[in-house]
């Protein structure tokens, strides 16, 4: 055995160990495969049967991405529920907090692993894009920007899921609260609360508020409009969630 004095661990090693364990962790249970299958089934069937992607006769994926905020609102909390809740339930949080890794390193490793897992789910839908390419002549730049937008949207939902997971030892509670919070963000974009809020915020305020919705920020990406504002929105929600969940874990 190497003595503890002879083992200087750089900041990167614990972080990559964490990232690898967490990512591999998704595939240790059948749940990951169920997740990937469900994501694909819903992504494809919503686009074709509800969105009428084929009937529209347009070689574009905007009807495919239209449903992604709903998908992520449901599935990002499902993938993110285990982040901290599982550590608490198993008691392994006590190991993690007494191993030579900072909570921030651990949290970032966990978060990126979960995001990477969601990216895998998204990547599996590439055949949809290929089908559209085979049937017509789509603008590939627009499709790529749509995928980037969807991935950022997934990160934002995951940030919210991370907070929910940090607050409880039950994955079920983490999932349900995470889902409800993401669901609200989806509804905001559709103006569901407009009338409710008009009295408080005024019509200008309501419009500003609607900008906080997930679809409002994903839409420009699906049209090929690369804009810093929606990207900044998704990333701020993602990293605010990551930061807040880390602080919650540290404080407990």
């Amino acid at each position, binding site marked *: 055995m190497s003595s503890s004095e002879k083992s200087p661990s750089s900041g990167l090693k614990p972080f990559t160990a964490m990232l690898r364990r967490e990512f591999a962790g998704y595939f240790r249970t059948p749940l990951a495969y169920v997740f990937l299958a469900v994501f694909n089934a819903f992504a494809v069937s919503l686009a074709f049967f509800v969105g009428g992607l084929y009937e529209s006769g347009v070689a574009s994926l905007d009807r495919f991405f239209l449903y992604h905020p709903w998908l992520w609102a449901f599935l990002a909390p499902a993938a993110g529920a285990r982040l901290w809740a599982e550590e608490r339930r198993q*008691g392994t949080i*006590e190991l993690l907090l007494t191993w030579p890794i900072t909570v921030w390193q651990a949290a970032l490793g966990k978060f990126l692993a979960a995001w990477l897992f969601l990216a895998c789910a998204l990547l599996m839908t590439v055949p949809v894009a290929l089908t559209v390419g085979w049937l017509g002549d789509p603008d590939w730049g627009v499709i790529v920007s749509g995928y980037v937008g969807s991935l950022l949207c997934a990160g934002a939902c995951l940030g919210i899921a991370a907070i929910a997971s940090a607050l409880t030892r039950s994955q079920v509670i983490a999932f349900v609260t995470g889902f409800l919070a993401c669901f609200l963000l989806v509804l905001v974009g559709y103006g569901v609360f407009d009338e409710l809020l008009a009295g408080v915020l005024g019509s200008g305020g309501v419009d500003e508020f609607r900008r906080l919705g997930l679809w409002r920020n994903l839409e420009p990406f699906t049209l090929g409009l690369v804009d810093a504002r929606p990207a900044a929105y998704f990333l701020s929600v993602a990293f605010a969630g990551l930061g807040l969940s880390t602080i919650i874990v540290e404080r407990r």
Partner: protein
Amino acid sequence: MPLIEAKNLSKSYGAIRAVRDVSFAVDRGEVVGFLGPNGAGKSTTMKMLTGHLRADAGAAVIAGFDVADQAVQAKQHLGYSPEGAPAYGEMTVREFLRFAADLRGLADPAESVRKTLELCRLGEVAAQTIDTLSKGYRMRVGFAQAVIHDPEVLILDEPTDGLDPNQKFEVRRILKEMAARKAVIVSTHILEEVGELCTRVIVIAKGEVRCDESRDKFLARGADLNAVFRRLTA
């Protein structure tokens, strides 16, 4: 310089004062038996020493590093097995130990895992997922992750809890083998363990240190250790 130092540690949970002004120091070569009734503050003290809980007041120092201010350095010198030996149940024993070795940034993680499997006699279950192991093996896995980096400081919360006599003997054997080079704290309910394993005894009750003395002095307090224990913790 002592390897473990508790300096006036205090911790409250709401109105309950779980640990009050606890101080002691442990040198290399000492195996301290940490005794006390349930709820006496043993685990809370250990959690503060290992950096899992932040102390309300006082400081914990491991190998010269303050657990709160120099957490990562302190934890590099520390091996800790919490009560119940928690582990990632879905991993195999080998995967789990490899993760612990990687996370600690050990120079040759594969070799560290091999040696630790051998030391803790875990070779035959190395490929099994931890969830499928018996309690005895699970406790040994918890012990294994605590010693994989050959730390100078070892803190074990009830490492023999729920083990059969043979398994207890095994854990004690391994501990004795490595104790001379380390500072060790072992919490236990089992008073007989004091005589077999420890060089020193600290009794804690109602969050306070009631007795801190050498094993021989403690054993000389009376033939009936249970009566001694009851008297000290009353």
